[in-house]
């Protein structure tokens, strides 16, 4: 657990970057700091590994004040990923990833062996090992950055806008892999982003900051979307937060109509829909909504575990359903 205990940071110029921040980041979870630019997210993050020292207050990792620890030793135990990856251009991909194990006293051979394994973990083929960062795409560099941060298997990871510098399609892929990795690894992660969608997607806990370095609200993504503490949070999570909050509603309770009511849905001999937008009971209402909106027929088809169509919904059905849930709450 990472604890911010009444932390203040005032830069020499006199501007308050972080204003009396008290916050707990749960162990094994991803906590995302989100908010408009300049609201103190990066400053807060960098105080955890002492890249910046607080003006007052304490930061503890598992109850231990970071201020009392040797800077370099502390940082070797905390994975650090930054925007644009910050890879060492003069070192190969493999040696970039081997950096921290080497600093920790592993032999070059051991460190490289560990590094090779990590490249695989983050989805990079071994053939990239001998390349230099300048020869990689932005998305590949970002993966190497993550691999470098993971190489010494630190319990804590800090990530500052790790996916901001790559294009949306690549970012989508990196998000998926991030979630998959984090499911396996269960690191205690502090991540900074200015993108509320990213925060909601990746965060177990989201901390929204406002101008002046003030914490506006902390909670699970669902809490923020459904119970914004104030006007600022409501505005920041967006006007379409109703739509976003559907990500947390299951499609299981969504009533469907018989497939026969929609002759435009074509089935093959086994009863599987062809060329249709399909979903299962496990998907979220958000996905189904998106499907009905983007499908040319305005209809999404529910399929069972065997892949056979067992019902259809239109966006009118979904709207009715949502109105019903809202009424119950």
């Amino acid at each position, binding site marked *: 657990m990472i604890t911010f205990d009444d932390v203040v940071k005032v830069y020499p110029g006199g501007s308050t970057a972080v204003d009396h921040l008290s916050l707990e980041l749960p162990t094994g979870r991803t906590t995302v700091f989100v908010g408009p630019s300049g609201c103190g997210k990066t400053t807060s993050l960098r105080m955890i590994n002492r*890249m910046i020292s607080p003006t007052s207050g304490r930061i503890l990792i598992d109850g231990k004040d970071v201020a009392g620890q040797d800077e370099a*030793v502390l*940082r070797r135990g905390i994975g*650090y990923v*930054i925007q644009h990856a910050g890879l*060492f251009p003069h070192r190969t991909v493999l040696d970039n990833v081997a950096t*921290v194990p080497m600093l920790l006293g592993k032999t070059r051979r051991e460190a490289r062996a560990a590094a090779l394994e990590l490249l695989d973990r983050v989805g990079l083929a071994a053939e990239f090992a001998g390349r230099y960062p300048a020869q990689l795409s932005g998305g590949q560099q970002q993966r190497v950055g993550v691999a470098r941060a993971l190489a010494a298997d630190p319990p804590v990871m800090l990530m500052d806008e790790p996916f901001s510098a790559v294009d949306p399609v690549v970012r989508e892929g990196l998000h998926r892999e991030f979630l998959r990795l984090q499911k396996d690894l269960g690191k205690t992660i502090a991540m900074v982003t200015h993108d509320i969608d990213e925060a909601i997607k990746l965060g177990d806990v989201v901390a929204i900051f406002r101008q002046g370095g003030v914490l506006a609200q902390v909670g699970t993504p669902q809490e923020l979307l459904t119970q914004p503490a104030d006007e600022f949070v409501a505005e920041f999570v967006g006007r379409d937060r109703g739509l976003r909050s559907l990500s947390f509603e299951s499609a299981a309770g969504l009533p469907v109509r018989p497939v026969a009511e929609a002759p435009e849905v074509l089935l093959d001999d086994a009863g599987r829909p062809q060329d249709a937008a399909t979903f299962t009971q496990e998907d979220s209402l958000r996905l189904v909504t998106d499907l009905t909106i983007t499908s040319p027929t305005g209809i999404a088809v529910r399929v069972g575990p065997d892949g056979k169509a067992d019902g259809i919904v239109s966006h009118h059905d979904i709207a009715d359903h949502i109105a019903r849930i809202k009424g119950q709450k």
Partner: protein
Amino acid sequence: MNLSYLLDPSHWDFSDGSIPTLIVSHLWYVLLSLVIGTAIALPIGLWIGHTGRGSFLAINAGNAGRSLPTLGLLMLMVTLLGLGLTPVLIALTVLVIPPVLTSAYAGIRNLDHRVVDAAKGVGMRPWQVLTKVELPMALPVLMSGFRSAALQVVATATVAAAVGLNGLGRLLIDGLAVNDYSRVLAGAIVVAVLAVLLDLVLAQVQRWIVSPGLSKR
């Protein structure tokens, strides 16, 4: 053009005052002043670049050093210290310091600060940041400063002969003294060829020590 002095085989043996022995002594002055000058300028340039303290020194030392007349400085040193190798080395070292210091400073200063930040962030100590990240990344700039220092010193080391030492300047000064222009021409040509060869060697050294990651795209 009279190449008779240059092409005369008797000037290419290893007797006193022959062209090969003058080349050796010339290179010796060049080497000594490059080593001493770099030993002084490199740490200072790196330190200023690394800490950001005393940048005005790095910039102004460059300008001041470039505008000092070497021959005048040499004469002053001889007046103060007497004849010998020391005044020559001082005068030549003063030529080496500005380009090396300025390039070391600029090489470190102009690094991508995000990379340096990452080096600290992964837990390198200041000394490791300097030697494992800043220095290797600054090498291309540093080497270009060193190469320009080497070229300048090769050309200017001819002044050694003006205060009684050897080096290729002997051919120029002695040739002028006896109106033997063929000898003067030989001196000028050998100095020029030496400069080109030295730069080729240093270019090869640069290819060896600079990571391919810094030039590959």
